[in-house]
């Protein structure tokens, strides 16, 4: 273990260097969060249009006919446009929201603060990581405006649909290539980011910051980086192969003898399953990249508002490591029915079920932490508690999908949509919300409005259950996912339920305006935040809100305590990490 203080760079004076092309991890963290905010609003609007279409497929969407004259002439959404929206929704949400906000965003801002460093290990690489991410996002969005529109092969981009080019449908031309380029760029950016997180955690910890004293969120970011380092290192070459199949005439993923749009495709010998293996080898760990930071954030926030230490901190870390390790052994559960050897299904099923053990332990630790607590119900605390609830809901439906025998029935249905939206979408979003309410004062030096925050929580909490719980029922009834309209006879009775979900989704989406308003208003006019408004222990609360350019004003903290010291007797029930012994 070594000591902090190193990468200090003088604060630049020009506006551009300070706020735009800054190498300061705090600016970069905020930039990532701003990017995620733009992305999440985009992704949410896309989901609104999709949900509206599913409820009322023949009703024109007001104004959409002008925005998308090809995809939705007269506002009536075409099947390909629906799939394009769906692909963009999934891609934007998974990559540019669930990866950037909880991991790259909060991680960048707080990981160096947590370890007592003045900046990341490689500030320039850090800056590059953000700008490449932004560029990747713009490349992805450009698919809306170039050629036949965005691709329609979903965020998983299964080959050969994604590999054969425009014969496979509108958007499978330029749009799909832009998608693959964007994702490859995103991989590079996240590899650079992960490299930074790991090096910073290993080498830039301040005096006294042993690994055991690392705050839980930083542990989670650290482990997430290790996962990301492996996962994105696999997806990137996979994207390169996909791009080559598309533009250079190779046949990595395209078998011989395909006839698409009446044209015999000039490819031979490729393996569609190869793409699925490469993709899910990344894809399942990616789920943990999205959710582990949430675990860390919740584990850090709950003790602060429960005013007692997290139950079993070491167990928590061990479970995180176990999850990270197991996450690389389970990808095949996405492929039970893909045509791979059925014997391997059982082999993939066992680790998939086993991974629920550490996840269950973590949930029980959170609930056990509440025992005997003195809960303070701030918006951040509510979202952390809500996280536990929605994560449990989403995790449990995983039991059905982890078993090949029940997956036979539920695989391609809305049950899966419900499962992953709860467990990685909603749960991760709750982690992001909790983190935002918790850290906003530190990031911007102003408090958020608690009343609005609580309204935001209650309406969102009820809303997401109304949206995603019924999707389990749809799945049980055999409702296939990724359908732009329900023309099958057996799906007709389910349309009222779809309409209910649509209304709930529009409502829940509208509720987020409260959050947006709170965010903007508090940034401008919120009450000035003290250094440690929540009486928390970790290092970021030892410095001013917001922290100075070098984080600790030239006096790197010396750590003498763990992050988990709450509930002491006396006038102050907590001990800060940098407090003299």
């Amino acid at each position: 273990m070594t000591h902090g203080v190193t990468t200090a760079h003088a604060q630049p004076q020009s506006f551009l260097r300070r706020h735009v092309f800054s190498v300061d991890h705090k600016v970069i963290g905020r930039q990532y969060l701003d990017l995620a905010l733009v992305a999440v609003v985009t992704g949410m609007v896309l989901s609104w249009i999709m949900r509206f279409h599913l409820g009322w497929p023949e009703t024109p969407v007001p104004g959409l006919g002008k925005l998308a004259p090809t995809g939705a002439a007269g506002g009536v959404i075409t099947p390909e446009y629906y799939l394009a929206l769906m692909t963009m929704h999934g891609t934007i949400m998974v990559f540019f929201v669930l990866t950037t906000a909880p991991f790259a965003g909060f991680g960048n801002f707080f990981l160096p603060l947590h370890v007592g460093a003045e900046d990341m290990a490689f500030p320039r690489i850090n800056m590059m990581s953000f700008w490449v991410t932004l560029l990747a996002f713009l490349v992805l969005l450009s698919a809306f405006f170039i050629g036949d529109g965005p691709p329609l092969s979903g965020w998983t981009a299964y080959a050969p649909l994604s590999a054969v080019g425009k014969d496979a449908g509108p958007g499978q031309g330029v749009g799909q290539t832009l998608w693959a380029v964007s994702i490859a760029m995103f991989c590079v950016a996240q590899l650079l980011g992960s490299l930074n997180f790991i090096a910073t955690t290993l080498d830039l910890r301040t005096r006294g910051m042993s690994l055991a004293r690392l705050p839980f969120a930083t542990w989670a970011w650290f482990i997430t980086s290790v996962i990301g380092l492996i996962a994105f290192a696999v997806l990137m070459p996979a994207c390169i192969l996909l791009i080559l199949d598309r533009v250079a005439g190779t046949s990595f993923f395209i078998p011989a003898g395909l006839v698409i749009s009446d044209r015999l495709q000039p490819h031979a010998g490729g393996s569609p399953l190869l793409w699925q293996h490469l993709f899910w080898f990344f894809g399942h760990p990616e789920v943990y990249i999205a959710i582990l930071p949430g675990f860390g954030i919740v584990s850090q926030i709950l003790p602060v508002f429960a005013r007692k230490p997290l139950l079993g901190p070491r167990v928590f870390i061990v479970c995180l490591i176990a999850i990270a390790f197991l996450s690389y052994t389970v990808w095949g559960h996405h492929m039970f029915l893909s045509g791979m050897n059925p014997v391997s299904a059982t082999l993939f099923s066992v680790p998939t079920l086993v991974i629920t053990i550490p996840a269950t332990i973590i949930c029980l630790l959170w609930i056990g932490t509440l025992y005997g607590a003195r809960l303070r119900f701030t918006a951040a605390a509510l979202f952390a508690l809500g996280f536990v609830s929605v994560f449990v809901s989403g995790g449990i439906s995983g039991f059905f999908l982890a078993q090949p025998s029940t997956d036979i029935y539920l695989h391609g249905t809305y049950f899966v949509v419900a499962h992953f939206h709860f467990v990685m979408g909603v749960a991760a979003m709750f982690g992001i919300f909790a983190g935002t309410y918790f850290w906003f004062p530190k990031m911007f030096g102003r408090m958020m409005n608690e009343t609005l925050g609580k309204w935001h929580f209650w309406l969102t909490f009820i809303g997401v259950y109304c949206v995603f719980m019924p999707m389990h029922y749809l799945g049980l009834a055999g409702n296939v996912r990724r359908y732009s309209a329900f023309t099958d006879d057996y799906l007709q009775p389910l349309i009222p339920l779809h309409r209910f979900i649509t209304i709930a989704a529009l409502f829940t989406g509208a509720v987020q305006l409260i959050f947006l308003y709170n965010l903007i208003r508090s940034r401008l006019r919120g009450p000035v935040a003290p250094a440690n408004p929540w009486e928390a222990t970790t290092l970021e609360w030892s410095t001013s809100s917001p922290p100075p350019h070098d984080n600790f004003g030239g006096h790197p903290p010396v750590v003498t305590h763990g992050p988990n010291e709450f509930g002491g007797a006396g006038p102050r029930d907590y001990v800060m990490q940098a407090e003299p012994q």
Partner: protein
Amino acid sequence: MVKKEEGSDRALHRGIGVGGGPPPPPAGTISGKVTYTGTLPKVRPIDMSKEPNCVTQHPTPVTTQDAVTGPGNSVRYVVVYVSAGDQGAPAATDTVHYDQKGCLYIPHVAAMQVHQPLEIFNDDPHSHNIHPLARVNPEWNKSQPKGAPPIRTAWDQPEFIPVKCNVHPWMHGYFAVLATSHFGVTDSTGEFSITGLPAGTYTVTAWHERFGTKSQEVTVGGSETKTANFVLTARPY
């Protein structure tokens, strides 16, 4: 929406666009009949069972349309057009209608001049997809859900473009995009006529999607009507 089935049938025989204005100068006509020799491919019933409301629209089973023949070995859906010797004529400006009804393209073959406006309608209570597999012209691929406005377009280059509905594999048709405005498409008795021809010598070509092309020279003088019959060779497979 207007019923256009009859209208489209009319479009089959029509030569050039007939607009208002002063009466045209005396003009000749080429008409005739297209027949086949050889063995026809088997006509197969189209199985539309995946789209039940198209099944119910056809009381008698529909058969494949890539080789439709009539009495006296006549061949339907043959495009007969002036391929050389055209002296120029006012461009066809009336709109060609192309319908999707009962999961069929009506007409199966729509002939048009380059730049002639084309309108594609969906008369079915569900979504269709129109995918002209163009190679010379820009290829496009659009769906037309129920209730969506008609697709208005035109083609810039002469080309015989196969049209495919990606949603209903059996739906196939052709856009015959021609440089000339002098063309006709054979009807159910294999007959066609090309009108409005000034005096001159023309190469007239008959094109069929399976039976290939045949050409012959025809000289038209004044306002006479010349006959030009074509015999195409059918192959069973």
